[in-house]
């Protein structure tokens, strides 16, 4: 991390990942501070059959509440929302969630782009997008939108990614704010939370 302080208040963090990202999330979860000052959304490409197991798997690794996102649900700080399999997850301007069953994007539903884009739209410069390992180009367009609306963009260092293609695509598409090794991600999110506490006072 180049800077010691992000220097702003964060409203929402969205993590997107595909092939090779599950381990990164599992490694990260135990190190997240309890009582994060913002909601965290995780969008992972996966097989439908794996669905309910994923929420339980994540819940076992962290003290934070982990739940599958429900339509019209209100986002609350300190909760980790998992995008349901086979639906896109959208963030509404009134900070609720909605789901949609429109076309797959980059062969994926949920699509990381969709959640990143709508999160940017709803949270502006208080949105943070973190893109992890993966084998397709989902997420890059979404990060662009987050950046253009003033939010923070983060990409897993391709060197530490099991499948470097997805982070590489993003690095080629835009100038991201932070490139982090997989073991740095939890610390970064904790830092965002501390800064949010400091700047929202």
């Amino acid at each position: 991390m180049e800077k010691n302080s992000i220097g702003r208040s964060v409203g929402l963090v969205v993590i997107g990942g595909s092939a090779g990202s599950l381990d990164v999330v599992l490694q990260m979860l135990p190190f997240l501070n309890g009582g994060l000052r913002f909601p965290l959304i995780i969008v992972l490409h996966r097989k439908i059959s794996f669905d309910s197991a994923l929420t339980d798997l994540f819940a076992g690794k962290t003290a934070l509440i982990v739940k599958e996102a429900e339509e019209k649900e209100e986002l609350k700080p300190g909760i980790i929302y998992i995008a349901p399999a086979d639906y896109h997850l959208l963030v509404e301007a009134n900070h609720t969630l909605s789901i949609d069953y429109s076309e797959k994007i980059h062969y994926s539903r949920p699509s990381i782009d969709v959640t990143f884009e709508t999160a940017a739209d709803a949270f502006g410069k208080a949105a943070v997008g973190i893109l992890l390992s993966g084998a397709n180009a989902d997420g890059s367009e979404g990060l662009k939108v987050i950046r253009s609306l003033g939010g923070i963009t983060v990409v897993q260092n391709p060197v530490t990614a099991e499948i470097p293609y997805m982070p590489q695509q993003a690095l080629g598409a835009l100038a991201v704010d932070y490139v982090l090794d997989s073991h740095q991600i939890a610390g970064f999110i904790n830092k965002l939370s501390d800064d949010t506490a400091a700047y929202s006072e």
Partner: protein
Amino acid sequence: MEQGVLQDSDIEILLNDLCEVYGYDFTDYSKASIKRRINRLFTIDRFLSFAEFRYRLRFDPDYLKRFVEQITVTVTEMFRDPLFYRALREHILPVLGTYPFIRIWHAGCSTGEEVYSMAILLKEANLLHKSLLYATDINAEVLEKARKGIFPLSQMKQYSENYILSGGKKDFSSYYTASYDKVKLDESLSKKMIFSSHNLVSDHSFNEFQLILCRNVLIYFDKDLQSRVFDLFENSLENLGYLALGSKETLRFSNISQRFKQIDKEKIWRKIA
């Protein structure tokens, strides 16, 4: 998708226009999804400004048709959520089979894949001959596709897998004739279907049914509109009739939940009073 070109205020103006000029009311739809789709259309159709887009929409009824087709989500599949269809097979159809005549409403049927799936279930339960399947949608274009019953051959592998997971025992290919890259579903299935345009936002009840299916439609509506549609469904269901929703939709928080009982784990409720 390109970055959103249209602002929330633009979207609001467009939706008000649609309502005022054509009577299509999308104002109670969830905003993020409809905004994404409108922006997508704006980009695909290469409009140069919001003003041009708005003008076209107001004064070109053919373009309105395209607009409605493009912003309503029409993605669907046969035997979507196979375990839901297994529950219909095992728990619901045996009850419906005791009626002399079965009326089923597929609200928001899109291109009809789920209507054909239902017809196959009814046929296998030997109930199709005494059933009528009312299939409605707001979008005339998709109804035309549904009526034809012609679907891409490339989907059939997935549909066949879904069918077997739903408890199907036959060879799925016995339900269609393939030609080049398309298949036509058996006409004995569509004989019992009635396709008609119906707008859940503005149109009223048109019959009483023993089973209403409305899957993955309510997710696009805001809470108020959802509650209006639930009332419409309640009014359109016979006592002891069934209401089936999509896998992420629920009656639990609705105004009518007291008068419905959920069947098992699946998203199927029975009207009990």
